[in-house]
């Protein structure tokens, strides 16, 4: 059982109610109910609407995943759930459901980190993660460069966005162009028809003195908006395809450049890209080119596993079981700002051994390089 644990994972950190079931590195079910259409007219995710939708969808989505996987709930080796980070009210629905299922079934509960789950999902696509794994996570909620020597116990943040997340920039630019919400897919579509070199938009935080692994997309977003407004004020047509392509080029250029630099600096020969923006076709293509040129193996899961889903939570839960990590307690809180350095939230041990380990591990840089 320890090698191929059968785990159900629940993800409700934003607007997708996701339930996945995996056996070790094998995906058995990936059921998702999304409330994105309800949020569209508000131009972004409304937390209370998301929470209400999670409550409606939670139990039916779990049933659907169990049916899809063709297993009985009593066969499970554990129940994993996103404990954070995310929207507090939304997380709470998933955490409460996971506890109730785990308790009712007499199975261990694993409260896991949403970001670590985005990395671990790649095990369902490309097999065991290399150790360490370099991961670039980009979505509407996060843009981070992470180094994970052990996805169940040691994840180190190298850099992250200092303002907007990459996905947020897509949403905002789409709004200026009147393309609706969410912005990612539609900008990707228009960009295919446009010239990426048509407009030289700024590359944030890429100067020699800037933080090498941090991102900034706020200046880019404003530059794009100003450029469009100047055109409109002059009574000229806005070339939507060229703006989309040039904006997208600026985002993906910065993301891949910094990710490759981190790989080089840390001596890591694999790069994993995850999160909703990893579905972007230009990001995938550019990462492929640049990784190939640098001799780095690129790992990007299929788009459905990059966006928020339950399978990624199940994947990390299965790894927790396989590596004998401590289960969570029944009073596991939903923690909207759970730090990425905590891949899971184990029940407090009487010796506090784990906590101390952690501090030392994170302060010792380049342990595995």
């Amino acid at each position, binding site marked *: 059982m320890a090698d191929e644990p059968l785990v159900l994972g629940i993800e409700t950190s934003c607007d997708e109610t996701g339930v996945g079931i995996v056996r070790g590195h094998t995906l058995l079910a990936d059921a998702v109910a999304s409330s994105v259409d309800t949020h569209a007219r*508000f131009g972004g995710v409304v937390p209370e609407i998301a929470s*209400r939708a999670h*409550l409606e969808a*939670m139990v039916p989505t*779990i049933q659907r995943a169990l049916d899809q996987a063709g297993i009985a709930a009593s066969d499970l080796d554990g129940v994993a759930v996103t404990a954070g980070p995310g929207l507090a*009210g939304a997380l709470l629905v998933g955490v*409460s459901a996971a506890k109730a299922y785990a308790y009712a079934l007499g199975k261990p509960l694993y409260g896991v980190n949403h970001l670590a789950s985005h990395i671990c999902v790649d095990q369902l696509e490309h097999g065991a993660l290399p150790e360490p794994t370099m991961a670039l996570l980009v979505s509407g909620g996060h843009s981070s460069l992470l180094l994970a020597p052990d996805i169940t116990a040691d994840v180190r943040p190298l850099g992250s966005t200092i303002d907007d997340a990459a996905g947020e920039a897509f949403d905002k630019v789409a709004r200026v162009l009147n393309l609706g919400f969410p912005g990612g897919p539609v900008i990707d579509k228009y960009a295919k028809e446009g010239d990426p070199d048509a407009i030289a938009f700024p590359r944030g935080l890429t100067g020699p003195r800037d933080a090498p692994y941090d991102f900034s997309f706020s200046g880019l977003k*404003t530059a794009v908006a100003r450029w469009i407004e100047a055109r409109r004020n002059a009574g000229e047509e806005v070339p939507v395809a060229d703006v989309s392509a040039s904006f997208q080029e600026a985002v993906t250029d910065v993301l891949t450049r910094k990710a490759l630099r981190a790989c080089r600096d840390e001596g890591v020969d694999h790069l994993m890209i995850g999160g909703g923006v990893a579905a972007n076709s230009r990001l995938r293509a550019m990462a492929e080119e640049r990784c190939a040129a640098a001799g780095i193996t690129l790992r990007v899961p299929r788009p459905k596993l990059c966006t928020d889903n339950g399978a990624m939570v199940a994947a990390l839960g299965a790894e927790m079981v396989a590596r004998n990590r401590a289960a969570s307690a029944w009073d*596991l809180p939903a923690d909207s700002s759970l730090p990425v350095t905590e891949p899971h939230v184990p029940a407090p041990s009487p010796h506090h051994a784990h906590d101390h380990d952690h501090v030392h591990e994170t302060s010792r840089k380049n342990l595995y390089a």
Partner: protein
Amino acid sequence: MLALDTATPAVTVALHDADGDRTLAAAHQVDARRHGELLLPCVERVLEEAGRKLAEVTDLVVGVGPGPYTGLRVGLVTAEAFAAALGQRVHGVCTLDGLAYASGLDEPFVVATDARRKEVYWARYDDARTRVGGPAVDRPAAIEEQVAEVPSVGAGAVLYDSVFRGVRRDLPTEQSAAALARLAAERLAGGAELLPPRPLYLRRPDAQVPAGYKVVTPR
């Protein structure tokens, strides 16, 4: 029968033996911000104290509110998930009905809980078992005429006692899962249909369609 309610600041759980009409064990903790953390340990304690397993429970009773949203959902999703995992029946009961039942009053009265934002959730009753109006959510001042002169129970009445002048401080102000369970058992025995386990929010989510796009170019 296992009853739970998280629609008010209290997390309240009771194991009830419907045939013997007695509460086997109950737990009660008040902390409006930690429903999610407190509920399952409370369930575990109640079952342990009664020496029973969750799988022995045949019926779940859950308070469906009205209540401030976040806490309310904890109880509902927990009851639903238990029921789905173990094939139990799950029944919803209006949270205010539980408070009314616990009051034991035999005359017209109102129940009010704190809805925050200077409002109360409230309902009118002819007696402890019979709701005749509501539930609704209102500012106390807006319902003064209807509630001022009759007996009232609940934390909302205590909080706004200048409006709820007939507040009965001698009666329970907090929701009790034991009362909820007895009420549900009584109704089920009488062949009544209970509510589905769906939340009574009584308010629309706070969401605004954003006003037009904001120009960033300085003027």
